[in-house]
């Protein structure tokens, strides 16, 4: 046990005096930034894709768009996130000659990747909404897009909120791959502490605890949101 407390001391030493906490904070910031922005971008693009995929298909344009969207979804769900990240950073960006920070690239890739997953979640969410809701909207002269946006999608989001919460948690966990393109995440931060204290037990333990804490907080947040959204269901 005395051994363990020495390890803790060494950890704290590097964490506090050798700038470890700065990196941990930066890692935490990047992790949250990439996951949150990734989710927001994913929600926006994913909803758009889902809407295209549930469009009535007797005209040509929706069919073409639908084909494109299902290709997109297959592409992003069919390859690992690390591969997408590496291809974006080391292949695509140099090819088109654009410079982006590794965090920015991570945000974009996480957004595009989660869009693919969220579009499928959202599609089943939209399909779970009573078709009568769309008919009600159309019957009073609202357009398809308007009814979708104001009536169907809000109800779909409510239905899929727990699944979206899981997607967010998955994103948080997946951020541990952004170090592949040089972004500082929690892994990089704690690895730094480990290398400088020649002691990896405590840093990785603390890292694990931090991840668990984040996931717990998000789960609670999702539960709370669910409850407050369910107020329109009272008495059902």
């Amino acid at each position, binding site marked *: 046990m005395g051994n363990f407390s020495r390890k803790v001391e060494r950890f704290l030493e590097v964490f506090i005096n050798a700038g470890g906490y700065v990196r941990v904070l930066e890692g935490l910031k990047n992790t949250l930034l990439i996951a949150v922005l990734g989710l927001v971008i994913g929600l926006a693009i994913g909803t758009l894709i889902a809407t295209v995929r549930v469009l009535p298909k007797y005209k040509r344009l929706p069919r073409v768009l639908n084909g494109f969207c299902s290709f997109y979804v297959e592409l992003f769900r069919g390859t690992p996130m690390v591969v997408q990240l590496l291809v974006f950073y080391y292949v695509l960006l140099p090819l088109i000659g654009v410079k982006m920070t590794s965090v920015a690239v991570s945000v974009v890739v996480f957004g595009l990747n989660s869009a693919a997953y969220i579009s499928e979640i959202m599609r089943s969410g939209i399909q779970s909404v*009573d078709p*009568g*809701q769309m*008919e*009600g*909207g*159309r*019957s*009073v*002269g*609202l*357009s398809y897009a*308007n009814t979708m946006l*104001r*009536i169907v999608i*809000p*109800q779909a989001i*409510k239905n899929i909120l727990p699944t979206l919460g899981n997607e967010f948690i998955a994103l948080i966990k997946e951020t541990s791959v952004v170090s592949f393109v040089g972004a500082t995440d929690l892994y990089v931060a704690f690895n730094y502490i480990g290398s400088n204290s020649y002691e990896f037990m405590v840093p990785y333990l603390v890292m694990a605890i931090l991840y668990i804490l984040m996931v717990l907080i998000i789960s609670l947040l999702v539960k709370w949101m669910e409850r407050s959204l369910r*107020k*329109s*269901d*009272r*008495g*059902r």
Partner: protein
Amino acid sequence: MIEVVNLTKSFGDLQVLKGIDLTIEQGEKVVVIGPSGSGKSTMLRCLNCMEDPTSGQILYHGVNLADMHVDINEQREKIGMVFQHFNLFNNKTVLENIMLAPVVTQKKHMKKLRRQQKQNKSADVEILTNAQIKARAKENALSLLERIGLADKADAYPSQLSGGQKQRVAIVRSLAMHPDVMLFDEPTSALDPEMVGEVLEVIRDLAKSGMTMVIVTHEMGFAREVADRVLFMDEGIILEQGTPQEIFENPQHPRLQEFLSKVL
């Protein structure tokens, strides 16, 4: 006001409507009866192109709604529809349910007017701000709720209402658009018996106010009471039509006689 010319509708291989011709006059109350599966709902839903007709024309004030180039949303603003299962917006309060469409469509119209006004400066029309549009819609919605005795439910969600209350709200949601005609598809079929009366009461009042109405119903007593004309549909055609008296007291076609003997 509405003229249906040789309307047919097929779902895949199944031809549900086999050539409907129908003219509905301003202020007329037309009640549609007929056995289950005869195509009553389908015909009604074709009237506002909720179902796209397979062939034929739906002329509404001379505009062919079946024409893909017609702005169907704009036309539907003036054609109210009430569904068997209410179809209130579950994520909106009663008040929001009633206000939503008037506010959204009014904003759209104002945008158009503003654009027109810019083009020829003489156009002298009243342009409302968004706040004014909302205030008016709210005032109108509240007075409609007052009319059906549900003013105290303005902030309730549909799930907190009884079936009868939902249907009454659904009716005034349509009325908030100031429609020229109202379509009803079995408005009381999904209701518990003790709630049928309150809904029929609202429809009856509406009939008295001179609204043009097309009502699909299994309530024969009500049909007889409000109808100017009754249509009997069977297997995708209008087999017989006439005044309630003609249809209920002196039915001609054996199919109609058989149908009436079952339901009366």
